[in-house]
């Protein structure tokens, strides 16, 4: 923070007022409406109206129907479990790809640093949905990716990628990569490169040097990058719907269709509240474990 003097008085409050009111009415109060809707009597409908009966059973019903897996096999997972696993996997792959890219930009790009940063963001200005449609083409059964994998016998001759969890995780990883790269870059770029050179001199193995010096120093970026990737990836359903099949449905898809197609507001709201609580819980736990509480 600069040495700017913060003025006291009414002006500050007046400047804040319109923005704060907007966020209160259209961001904070809606959470209250959501919780309220999740406690409506499920026998109502959006046309006849709902009765507020504090029907906590909505949560239990939603959890049994969409949260409880039918078995251990991936095909038997529930949409909720699937979302967490797919989101987690996508975050993991984003971390690996994003770290390599951010490290290369921060330390190896030289005078091309700015250009490379621009190139990281550029593809993501093309619409999210159009990008995901491209993956549909790339992963298609007669596409070059499937053909190559079949040629290498990684995939059976009748194997395919589209409509499988692999395709969904591929799409999620691709679409949320910039959310990982940018915070990682911000964090790695701040590291004094001489520390890394010193570690290379002192540790025989560059890998040991990396895990003892670079990685710990980049942790703030790792934490914010993984959060910024994981949270939207868990809630996303565009990838699961466009690249997956009915057996890869994610929780966002269930909530969306309960709201817009089934018009079952109480169940949809209960699921939505549970997703939010689950994510807040996981984030708090994770931030505490990672020890970077000053982030929040």
């Amino acid at each position, binding site marked *: *923070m*600069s040495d*700017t*003097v*913060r*003025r006291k008085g009414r*002006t*500050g409050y007046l*400047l*804040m007022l*319109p*923005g*704060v009111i907007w*966020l209160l009415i*259209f*961001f904070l*109060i*809606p959470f209250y*409406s*959501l919780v*309220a*809707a999740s406690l409506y009597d499920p026998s109502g409908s*959006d046309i006849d109206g709902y009765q507020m009966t504090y029907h906590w059973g909505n949560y239990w019903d939603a959890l049994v129907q969409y949260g409880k897996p039918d078995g251990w096999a991936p095909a038997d997972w529930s949409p909720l479990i699937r979302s967490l696993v797919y989101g987690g996997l996508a975050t993991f792959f984003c971390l690996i790809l994003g770290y*390599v*890219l951010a*490290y*290369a930009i921060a330390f190896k790009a030289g005078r091309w640093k*700015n250009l*490379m940063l621009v*190139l*990281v963001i*550029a*593809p993501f*200005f*093309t*619409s*999210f949905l*159009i*990008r995901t449609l*491209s993956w549909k*083409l*790339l992963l*298609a059964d*007669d596409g070059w990716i499937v053909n190559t994998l079949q040629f290498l016998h990684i995939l059976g001759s009748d194997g395919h990628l589209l409509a499988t969890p692999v395709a969904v995780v591929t799409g999620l990883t*691709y679409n949320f*990569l910039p959310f990982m790269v940018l915070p990682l870059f911000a964090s790695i770029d701040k590291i004094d490169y001489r520390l890394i050179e010193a570690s290379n001199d002192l540790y025989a193995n560059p890998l040991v040097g990396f895990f003892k010096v670079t990685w710990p120093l980049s942790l703030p970026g790792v934490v914010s990058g993984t959060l*910024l990737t994981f949270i*939207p990836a*868990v*809630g*996303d*359903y565009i990838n699961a719907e466009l690249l997956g099949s009915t057996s890869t449905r994610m*929780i*966002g898809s269930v909530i*969306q269709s309960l709201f817009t197609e089934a018009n079952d507001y109480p169940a949809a709201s209960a699921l*939505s509240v549970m*997703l*939010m609580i689950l994510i807040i819980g996981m*984030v708090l736990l994770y931030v505490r474990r990672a020890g970077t509480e000053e982030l*929040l």
Partner: protein
Amino acid sequence: MRWLRERIVLILGLAVLVYTFIPIGVVVLMSFNKPKSEQSKLYRFEAFTLDNWLHPCNDPSMCAALGRSISIGLLATLVATILGTLLAFALVRHDFAGRSMMNLLIFMPMASPEIVMGSSLLALFVAAGFAGQLGFWTILIAHIMFCLSFVVVTVRARLAGMNDTLEAAAMDLYATPRETFWKVTFPLVFPGILGAALLAFSLSFDDFIITNLNAGNTTTFPMYVWGVSRKTVPMQVNVIGTVMLIISIAIVLGGEYRNRRQARALATN
């Protein structure tokens, strides 16, 4: 071997960068695709044509959706940028009670899953009796809401990185507070505000999940793409994707060029 060892990270990094461009290549390629039949469900390259570029509005409903997305984007950007800039000034330049609550309120919309924000807003609209009026205005309200935080964060970063020496100098030279603000402060913050506005527009233009929940029967461009993705995708969609890419790269490169020229001008003075 030594050459490779020194450059392996850069090579891997470039490989990741190439990977991010593969689907973009597909978008550009498909914008020149001529599908075998109009109803072809297969989404693959068949033959070269310029038709898609010459007749982008072959499906009028696509261009209507596009126009709607652009007007919502512009309006949402305007309102979110004004409200967000005022908020950023208050946060950096003014003292007030409840600063940490304020920071939390601004941070939360960026950290909440879209599906939760979208369904909450829908629950509010339904509870308030607007279930039948979902459409342009409810989409606009939602977009202003989720763009606002990003504007605040971007403008705040610019303001916080600026020290007030120049403003103090202007005041010493008997500029009135108003003159100081419009002749010194505002021009200095402006690049941050412009960046925030561009970010807000691209967020609004691209949003699907929140929009889809609060749109009623109104269709925005992402919703149109979603709709056709289940049936036949008109190749014109890829023309729009390519144009968006070109415009954004032009804006970013233009900004970069301006920065370099300014830096050079400052260096030679």
